[in-house]
């Protein structure tokens, strides 16, 4: 009698369906450099900014949908939530004004939009996003934490809270529990297919963030000499760098809103004046 080891379990299906995406994500330029210990402070900070936006959106939609049948079984805010840790890490690197100084790549914003859309329209797909991020954080993510600490010479876990899960005593056992919870979600065949597709979308969104971070960093090194001519040498002004490789709306996040409004008013007045004249 042939043994029946077919896997209709969501946890196994999702793993199989995203295998290729997973390989692609690991083999992005950024991740390859990272694994070799070649991560710069600049990259890490940009990564943290992106992660902040992503988890802000993810955890908000999870909270909103906490009692939804397809979310309740995998809802573990105490064990998993990353937002407080990210806040603390961002504050460590940017200081008190971290909210204003954050630089967020477009790809992260696209990711945020998708999360918000799924939260509104298809909360049953949220498991795909939660799986992709959280289970990743508990697996390879742990190794990335160690690499980051070594490469950047960070002491005492400062700026590395993102990688630490103080309320999970065993990542391995927690992942097993999480999978059993995933498998208790009831889905129609169509919903199941959509969830698997959404998981690949989640991977793709992550890959796009990595690629954009990679681009930003290489354009820093290219434009640095030009930047140095425009500004005083001591500040490697990343504001200018980011402004160079991002469309206008990105660089606007640098300035506080008030200043932006004043400048706008100023321009309007100037235009009005010219018109009047």
């Amino acid at each position: 009698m042939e043994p029946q080891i077919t896997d209709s379990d969501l946890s196994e299906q999702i793993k199989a369906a995203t295998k290729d995406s997973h390989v692609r994500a690991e083999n992005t330029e950024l991740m390859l450099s990272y694994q070799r210990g070649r991560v710069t402070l600049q990259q890490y900070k940009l990564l943290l900014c992106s992660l902040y936006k992503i988890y802000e959106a993810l955890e908000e939609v999870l909270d909103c949908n906490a009692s939804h049948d397809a979310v309740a079984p995998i809802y573990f805010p105490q064990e998993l939530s990353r937002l407080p840790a990210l806040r603390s890490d961002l504050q460590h690197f940017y200081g008190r004004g971290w909210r204003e100084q954050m630089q967020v790549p477009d790809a992260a914003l696209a990711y945020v939009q998708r999360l918000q859309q799924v939260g509104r329209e298809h909360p049953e797909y949220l498991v795909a996003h939660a799986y992709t991020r959280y289970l990743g954080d508990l697996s390879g993510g742990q190794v990335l934490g160690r690499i980051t600490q070594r490469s950047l010479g960070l002491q005492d876990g400062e700026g590395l809270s993102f990688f630490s899960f103080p309320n999970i005593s065993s990542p391995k056992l927690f992942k097993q529990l999480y999978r059993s919870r995933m498998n208790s979600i009831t889905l129609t065949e169509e919903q199941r297919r959509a969830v698997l597709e959404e998981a690949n979308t989640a991977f793709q969104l992550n890959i796009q963030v990595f690629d954009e971070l990679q681009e930003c960093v290489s354009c820093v090194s290219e434009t640095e000499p030009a930047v140095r001519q425009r500004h005083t040498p001591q500040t490697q002004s990343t504001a200018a760098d980011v402004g160079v490789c991002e469309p206008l709306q990105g660089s606007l996040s640098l300035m506080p809103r008030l200043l932006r409004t004043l400048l706008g008013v100023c321009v309007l007045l100037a235009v009005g004046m010219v018109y009047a004249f």
Partner: protein
Amino acid sequence: MADTQPTEMMEEDEPFFSNLDLFLFSLIAGLLIYWLIFRKKAEPIPEFKKLETAAPTTRDTSFIDKMKKTGKNIVVFYGSQTGTAEEFSNRLAKDAHRYGMKGMAADPEEYDLSELSRMGEIDNSLAIFCLATYGEGDPTDNAQDFYDWLQEADADFSGLKYTVFALGNKTYEHYNAMGKYVDKRLEELGAQRIFDLGMGDDDGNLEEDFVSWREQFWPAVCEHFGVEATGEESSIRQYELKVHTDLNMNKVYTGELGRLKSFENQKPPFDSKNPFLAPVTVNRKLNKGGERHLMHLELDITGSKIRYESGDHVAVYPINDTAMVNKIGELLAVDLDTVISLNNLDEESNKKHPFPCPTTYRTALTHYLDITNSPRTNVLYELAQYASDPKDQENMRKMASSSAEGKAQYQSWVLDSCRNIVAILEDLPSLRPPIDHLCELLPRLQARYYSISSSSKVHPNSIHICAVVVEYQTKTGRVNKGVATNWLKNKMPTDNGHKATVPMYIRKSQFRLPFKSTNPIIMIGPGTGIAPFIGFIQERGWLKEQGKEVGETVLYFGCRHKNEDFLYQEELAQFEKTGVLTTLNVAFSRDQAEKVYVQHHLKNNKEAVWKLVHTDNAHIYICGDARNMARDVQTAFYEIAEELGGMSRPQAVDYIKKLMTKGRYSQDVWS
């Protein structure tokens, strides 16, 4: 309109315009200047020295010259990708100082490793290699050149003394391939291995593997080079004693783990550094007969804001037996109530003291230090110097050495005879170490964990514990007692204002009931392994009362004798009666000639078990003894899968492994 407007405006504009002009000009100018300044201020990147020196100039690729210049005799090369091997190397290099030698850690990528053949030029030289294996048995990037070179090399390493510690992960096929290769290859090239290859497994506990290896390694090195580890020039004390003569007792620790007075002024949140002192409300004996003492305790957590779930663990901080502590004071002729601090000699270290200081020796030995476990070899080694009888000193050093005879002696005299520090001090009367050095060497007293045997749905303010008191006779005729279980046994609830309390906190586990109450469960928990299942069954009962549909709830329990240690017999009978517990299966191991255990009962019911597991999506839970029971039960499941699932043994193993991955086969086991 067009005519009048400009005219109007021109009439008004003359003075208005110039004001506006000035105003706008200064506003724009001001804003522009501000903006420029603001942009300049953004992102001053702090200089990270580490990044600057990331690519060192290879002015000096001779490590031999460097070692000669800086007076080092030990070089520790690291093959590191994530920094772990590098960290280990740094620690080993530092260690060398403690043994009267000088070490330096080195990146193999920066030096010419062919110079290993020149190691003989340095006296008492030694090359240590900490090598991680990457991916499919590959060297790390920084060791790639070394690896390639070794394969082609035709060098003579006869002057080279070496040892290798390998870092890897057992789940990979080529476990520790790099470390193993280098260990073998160096020998082939004529080098002399002075200590066995160390194997670190990141899937298990890499740090522990390293520390254990290192503990044996250094004594072997000392023996090999004829170097005395003890001596004025190589003081191996990590801490310095300070005796306090005139200190306000409010500043002295009396057993707290974190904040001073945290036992007197209790403030949530409660955790390992700030435990909650829970009053004991119930403490009763569970067994009706037999020599052992099994107990059920209830801890009151009202007002603590502590939450838990069935399956979680409760951690308790026990204290040592007063008589034992007093004995140490007697043997070492010390006033245990002296107020002291032990301060770290390494001022850069984060660990200022080995335990909360200032405190008294009595408090340290009672609350903070482990005095009941057999001391490790490094403790024996460091204490040996205080044995005035040369024969005692020799024996202690021998037991700490890596020689086969020494290892055997340690095994038999310390481990098999279950000698703890008190026994050793008694049996070696010439051994009288200073008490502060002893306090530095003894490990910290650890919290003990128990599976909670209540459900928070039924008992939100009470945590139940089910435990067996540990007590046994040793080969030396002494009676060893378990620290926590004996301490718990004596915690009687009293009602005269002095409630017995237990410092505790919750450690969340991943041992959980299925999300859906309809999901069947098979619980296997002989002896005190039944603890979490009482909680599970209580919770299923509660769900039933709430009107939820509850799936099959099956328990396999085992004990020695039906009329002696059938734990929770009445409670379980009640649960059966109300239909909460759908199947209760008990194995009484010693009630008949042949031993009957839970796994036998499992096999007897294989059809029912298989149907639940394979068809009904049942979750399996195992709790109790790790060494034998858990393994035997797992084998029983393999056999059932083979017989009823038509699988081969490898297929059955794979099947159960899959269940584990998917969280349907959970274990809460201890050894």
